[in-house]
C-alpha cells in the first residue's frame, strides 16, 4: 500500500537517503542537530550521522554560509538551512557575490554543490520579518538555481536532484505545506520510499484546462489547484502550471499552455513588483507564438508590495488566496 507522508517528512527522507549515499554531504544550520530543525526537517540526522556531518551553528548566517562555500570548494557537498528565508539578508553577500559567482569568476574551475534550504511564506500571523517568500531575488541572480515545491512528492524528488546538482540551489519550502500540526493546512501525499530525482527546470501541469492558464509555485500552486477545482464547478476549465523551479524557468511549458488557452493569470505570494509575475508575463509576451495566442491582457495576483502585516484581516488583504484567484480568473475569462 502506498504511504502518504507530509512534506516535512519527504524533505527529511530525501536528506537522509542522500546522506546515506554520499558521505561528502553535510548539513549545517541553527538548531538542526539536537533539535532536528525549527520545522522538523532534520529530525534524526544528528543521531544517524553524528556531529561531524550534522552541525549545529551559532546565529552567524554569513559565517556559516561562507563556511559552506569554502567546504564545497574543496570537496564537500553542504546543505545549509536558514531557519527562515527572511534571514537570508545577513548572509546575502556570501550567497550572491560568492556562492553564485565563484564558479563563473574562476572560469569554471570550481564546483559549488551547495543547497540552501529555507522555509518561506506567510498566512499564519508571523508578520513582516518572518513571512516572506523572496524567491524572485534569488532568481534574479545568475548562478543560483531556485526550487519551490508544492507537495511531498515533488519536494523529495526535487530535493534529491538539488543535492546531486553540482551548482548552488536555493530550495524553498512553504511553511503552510510542511504538514506540521501548528501550521495548517499542510501538504500530504504519496511518496515512494526509494530515492528518485525530478529534473530541475520542468514545470508540472497540475491540472489540464482549455480556458485559462494559471501559474503558481509552492503555496500559490497549491492554491491555484484548489481554485481550478472551484472554477471547474463554474464551467471554467483552468490549466494550472506549478512551476516547481523558478530557475531554470520552464518557458516551454508556459508558452505551450498559453498557446492553448490564450489567457494567463500569474499568482505569487512574493512581492509583486519586479518579481515572478513580471518575468512570467514577459516570457509569454516576448514570444511571437504565445503573444499571438493571447486573447486578453495577462493578469497577476500577488502581494501588491506590502510588508506582510500581522493582523489577520490585514494579512488576508495582502496575500493571495483561492478566492482572489477565482475572482481574477473569472474576470479574465469573461473579458
Amino acid at each position, binding site marked *: 500500500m502506498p504511504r502518504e507522508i507530509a512534506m516535512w517528512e519527504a524533505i527529511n527522507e530525501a536528506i537522509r537517503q542522500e546522506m546515506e549515499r554520499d558521505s561528502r554531504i553535510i548539513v549545517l544550520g*541553527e*538548531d538542526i542537530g*539536537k*533539535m532536528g530543525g*525549527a520545522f522538523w526537517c532534520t529530525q534524526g540526522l544528528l543521531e544517524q550521522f553524528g556531529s561531524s556531518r550534522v552541525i*549545529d*551553528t*551559532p*546565529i*552567524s548566517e*554569513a*559565517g556559516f554560509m561562507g563556511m559552506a562555500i569554502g567546504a564545497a570548494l574543496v570537496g564537500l557537498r553542504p546543505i545549509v538551512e536558514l531557519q527562515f528565508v*527572511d*534571514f537570508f*539578508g*545577513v548572509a546575502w553577500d556570501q550567497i550572491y557575490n560568492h556562492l553564485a559567482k565563484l564558479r563563473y569568476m574562476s572560469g569554471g574551475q570550481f564546483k559549488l554543490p551547495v543547497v540552501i534550504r529555507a522555509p518561506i511564506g506567510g498566512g*499564519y*500571523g*508571523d*508578520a*513582516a*520579518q*518572518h513571512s516572506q517568500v523572496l524567491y524572485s531575488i534569488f532568481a534574479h541572480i545568475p548562478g543560483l538555481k531556485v526550487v519551490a515545491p508544492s507537495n511531498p512528492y515533488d519536494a523529495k524528488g526535487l530535493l534529491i536532484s538539488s543535492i546531486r546538482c553540482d551548482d548552488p540551489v536555493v530550495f524553498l519550502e512553504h511553511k503552510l505545506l510542511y504538514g506540521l500540526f*501548528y501550521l495548517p493546512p499542510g501538504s500530504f501525499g504519496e511518496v515512494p520510499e526509494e530515492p528518485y530525482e525530478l529534473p530541475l527546470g520542468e514545470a508540472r501541469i497540475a491540472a489540464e484546462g482549455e480556458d485559462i492558464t494559471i501559474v503558481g509555485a509552492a503555496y500559490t500552486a497549491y492554491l491555484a489547484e484548489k481554485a481550478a477545482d472551484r472554477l471547474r464547478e463554474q464551467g471554467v476549465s483552468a490549466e494550472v502550471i506549478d512551476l516547481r523551479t523558478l530557475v531554470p524557468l520552464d518557458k516551454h511549458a508556459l508558452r505551450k499552455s498559453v498557446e492553448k488557452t490564450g489567457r494567463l493569470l500569474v499568482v505569487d505570494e512574493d512581492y509583486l513588483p519586479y518579481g515572478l509575475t513580471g518575468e512570467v508575463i514577459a516570457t509569454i509576451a516576448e514570444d511571437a507564438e504565445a503573444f499571438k495566442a493571447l486573447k486578453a491582457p495577462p493578469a497577476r495576483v500577488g502581494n*501588491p*508590495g*506590502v*510588508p506582510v*502585516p*500581522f*493582523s*489577520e*484581516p*490585514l*494579512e*488576508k*488583504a*495582502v496575500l493571495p488566496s483561492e478566492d482572489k484567484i477565482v475572482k481574477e480568473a473569472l474576470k479574465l475569462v469573461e473579458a
Partner: protein
Amino acid sequence: MSRVLLSFKSYSLAEREEKLEAEVTRELALSFYRKMVLARTLEDELKRRYESFEMRGELHLGRGQEAIPAGVCELLSDRDFVSATHRCIAHAVCKGLPLDGIIAELYGRASGVCRGKGGHMHLASSSKRFLATGIVGGGIPIAAGAALAFKTLGEDSVAVAFFGDGAANQGTFHESLNLASIYRLPVVFVLEDNQYAFSTRRSESTAVESNAIRALGYSMPALEVDGNDVIAVYTAAKWAVERARRGEGPSLLDCKTYRLSPHLEIVDTEEYRPEGEKEKWEKLDPVRRLEEQAVELKLASKEDFEQIKAEARKLVEEAFQRALSSPLPAPEEAFRDIFSGE
C-alpha cells in the same frame, strides 16, 4: 643554517573586580517590583490565552529574565531609546508602553501599539522611543545609531540595545560595538545571556567563557552582572547609563540569566535542557529574589508585594478588557503606511 629565537607580543586576560555602590530606597525597590510583576503577570496571562489559540503567530516570553529590563529601564526616560528583540514584551512594559496597546497589538487589533501591523515580535512606539525587531542582532546597530543622533543633536539621551547571547555571535554585534566605541556614543549594550539561543547552548556556540571578554576587543568597559538580581542590574546600569550621559561612551553589561519560558510557546519541547537545570534556576527567580532582598534590607514587606501583585492583576485585567474591545483593523488599512503621506 641558523637558529633564530624570536619573541612575539601576545595578550592574555586578567580578571578584575569592579565595585559599585547604589542607593536603594523603598520607592525604588517597589518600582523594580512593580515593573517585574507587571511584566510577569501580563506574560502569564498571555501564555494562558495563547495556549487556547487566542492569538496568532509565535510568542516568545521571558519568564525569569524580568530583572534585566526592569533594572535597566528604571534609569531611562521617554527621551531615551531602546531596541529590543523578539522577546520584547517585558521590555515594552518596562519602557512604559501602554499595556492595552501591547495586548491589542498581540491580538492584531486596531488599537495595538502598531495598529496591528507589527505583531508580538515588533512592538514599537515612537513616543516612547522603543523598537523591537525579530531579526537576531538587528537592533544592535540601530541603538548605536540613535546614540549617534543624540550625540550629533547634543541631546543627553542614551540608547540601550537589549539582545541575547545568541545575537552576540552575529556580525552586527562586532560592528556595532566597534562603531560605538570609535565614535564614543552614548549607548549601553545589554546582553541578556540566558544561556540558550533556541536549542543552542551558549557554551557550544560561543567560543568564549563570557561575552564581557569580547568588550576588550573594542576598548569598551564591560561588567558581568547577575541578571536575576534586579539591584545588581540597576547598579550596573546606573554606572553605564551615567557614563553614557556624561559623554564617556559606550559600555557592555553581560547579564547572566536563564529563560524559564520555552523559546517559543506551544512548539518548543525544551528537550535540549539537561535534567534539573531549569529547576535550579527556578530557585533564582528574580521576583522572589527581590522580595527576599527587600525584606532583608527592610525596604518592603510581604503586604507590599501582595498589594502590588493585586494591582498588577487588576491593571492587566483592565488592559485586556480595553484591548479586546478594540476592533480588528479594516482590510484597506493594510495598504497604508508603506510610504509616508499615503
